[in-house]
């Protein structure tokens, strides 16, 4: 199948699904749920087709507006979407986890009201993330970033009858808007200096004439996107917002939003737009410093939490630290083998962590659904009454700590290895972070396998729509863990190469015109 013809459906399908949702839901609950599952299922199919096409045929370009890159009177009126291998991988990740989250919501949100708005927002959230992944235009990127952010602000505050959702929503939203404004300010500065917003063309212009304005804009991008990805010291909204959302949304926020809207966008701007026009060593070390703070603070805060979802949220912060460490080393050691491996490890860990953290948040949701509490002190002995859920948690926890037969090991290993080759102190910090991470998850596992308290005796494994997404994610983790180096060589190293290849990105833009 020709990739370029199906690419627009990646946006059209969820957009149509989202805005037809209120009409469809007039036909009742069943129709609404079926519609949500069908739409996200079709999006998953389109996403897989796009990934397959890009993997086979190389990057694709889709233009809205003028086909020529020079346009009328030297002024191109157009927006480009440019999908390289990294974007395609992110598209696959988003559509997969979003589909499972929608499936899970059928059972999990059964007792809530306002569900037509909920499904509309969840599809808009997916749409925003897909848009960020495929766009090749900076302002288009900003629009999709805001679509994604506004949908997630609204979803964090979805349960507006609780003070927790409202407080978390306000904290997330107010500071998040400032971060978005910083990104917009950076875009405005770049436009003023270079007069274009197409990423590939901007890369050419910056390489020809690197100015101070470009550096200032880069600083605004880095700060805004570090906030969106939840790096320390601007991670505090994450620990408030992610636990307050409904669990299916927490899975999407922790698994996808902080990666697409934060890490992916950061990597795209750093590698594809700026590339070697700025001093990559400095930028790399800036990212590395934030990564080290992040992975220590995030994992350490996870150890002392008593709230299960808050623990998982802090653990997300810690894992973002590993991903940023990989990207930072990939920048600082650009072009060397160490850099390739670090970048491949970062991308691999992005994908793995999306699966693992989605699984863990879905399990937390199942526990809340059955017991109505997420305080770890009241959950002891869950293994007796919820064996399947506990087993899935065991898989997820082992994977996130990085035990060998599971997928988390391979990606963490690549990051440790490259950081040890780059600078042994960084590897030490990374291992200390993992020690804290292990401590946090051992506490939860001890609680689950302890002596059953009376509260948990009435609990049982959730019903099929909630159980199956968890089983699929656990199976994916195990299967990916069985072929770590095959995946790394076949997918992750080429993806890292595609991201590093700035000239290829520009050539796709010019050649596809």
């Amino acid at each position, binding site marked *: 199948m020709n990739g370029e013809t199906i690419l627009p459906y990646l946006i059209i399908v969820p957009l149509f699904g989202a805005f037809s949702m209120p009409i469809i839901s007039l036909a009742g609950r069943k129709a609404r749920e079926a519609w949500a599952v069908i739409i996200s299922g079709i999006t998953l199919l389109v996403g897989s087709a796009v990934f397959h096409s890009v993997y086979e045929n190389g990057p694709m370009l889709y233009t809205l507006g003028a086909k020529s890159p020079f346009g009328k009177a030297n002024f191109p009126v157009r927006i480009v979407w440019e999908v390289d291998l990294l974007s395609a991988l992110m598209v696959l990740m988003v559509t997969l986890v979003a589909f499972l989250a929608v499936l899970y919501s059928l059972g999990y949100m059964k007792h809530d009201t306002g569900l037509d708005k909920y499904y509309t927002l969840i599809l808009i959230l997916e749409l925003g993330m897909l848009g960020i992944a495929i766009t090749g235009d900076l302002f288009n990127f900003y629009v999709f970033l805001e679509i994604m952010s506004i949908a997630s602000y609204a979803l964090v505050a979805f349960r507006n009858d609780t003070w927790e959702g409202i407080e978390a929503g*306000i*904290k997330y939203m*107010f*500071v998040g808007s*400032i*971060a978005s404004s*910083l990104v917009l300010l950076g875009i405005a500065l770049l436009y003023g200096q270079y007069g274009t917003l197409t990423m590939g063309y901007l890369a050419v212009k910056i390489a020809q004439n690197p100015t*101070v304005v470009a*550096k*200032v804009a*880069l*600083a*605004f991008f*880095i*700060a805004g996107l*570090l*906030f969106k990805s939840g790096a320390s*010291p*601007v991670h*505090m*909204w994450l*620990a*408030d917002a992610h636990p307050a959302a409904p669990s299916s949304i927490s899975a999407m926020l922790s698994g996808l939003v902080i990666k697409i809207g934060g890490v992916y966008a950061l990597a795209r701007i750093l590698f594809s737009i700026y590339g070697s026009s*700025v*001093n990559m060593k*400095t*930028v790399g070390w*800036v990212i590395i410093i*934030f990564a080290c703070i992040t992975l220590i603070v995030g994992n*350490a*805060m996870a*150890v*002392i939490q*008593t709230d299960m979802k808050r623990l998982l949220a802090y653990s997300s912060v810690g894992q973002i630290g590993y991903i940023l460490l990989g990207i930072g080393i990939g920048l600082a050691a650009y072009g060397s*083998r160490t850099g390739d*491996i670090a970048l491949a490890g970062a991308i691999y860990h992005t994908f793995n962590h999306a699966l693992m953290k989605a699984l863990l948040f879905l399990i937390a949701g199942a526990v809340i659904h059955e017991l109505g509490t997420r305080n*770890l*002190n009241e959950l*002891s*002995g869950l293994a007796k009454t919820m064996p399947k859920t506990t087993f899935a948690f065991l898989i997820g926890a082992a994977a996130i700590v990085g035990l*060998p*037969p599971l997928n988390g090991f*391979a990606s963490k*290993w*690549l990051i440790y*290895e490259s950081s040890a*080759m780059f600078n042994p102190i960084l590897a030490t910090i990374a291992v200390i972070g993992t020690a804290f991470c292990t*401590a946090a998850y*051992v*506490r*939860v*596992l*001890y*609680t*689950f396998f*302890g*002596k059953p*308290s009376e509260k948990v005796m009435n609990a049982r494994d959730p019903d099929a729509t909630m159980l199956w997404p968890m089983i699929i994610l656990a199976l994916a983790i195990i299967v990916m863990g069985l072929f770590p*180096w095959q995946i*790394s060589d076949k997918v992750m190293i080429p993806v890292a190469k595609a991201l590093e290849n700035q000239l290829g990105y520009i050539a796709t833009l010019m050649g596809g015109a």
Partner: protein
Amino acid sequence: MLGYWDALYFVFVFIIGLILAYLLDKWAKRSGMGTRETGDGTKIFISGEDPDRIIPGFEHLEGNYTGRNVMWGLTYALKNFFAVLRRDHTGLLTDYASYLVITTAFVLGVLLIWG
């Protein structure tokens, strides 16, 4: 050996670890005084949490191994570090924004000087 890992090595290490654990257990049993076979020694004891003792006011937690204190050694050893972290997470919206501004200023300064 970049990017090299073989599952077999881990199986070997795991088996060696099992053997070591077994030998340690044997040795401990032989040199122990027999207190682990009778009386209080047989109870599982996690960092000061006695499952049979009822603490006034905490009856609802009676007999639960909550895992609360599993990492007691770690949290106690690093209690100053954790206290600093806890104090920093004020939960105040203004502080969140200040950190964002400080981060921006830091990145901007670094990029302008060394970029």
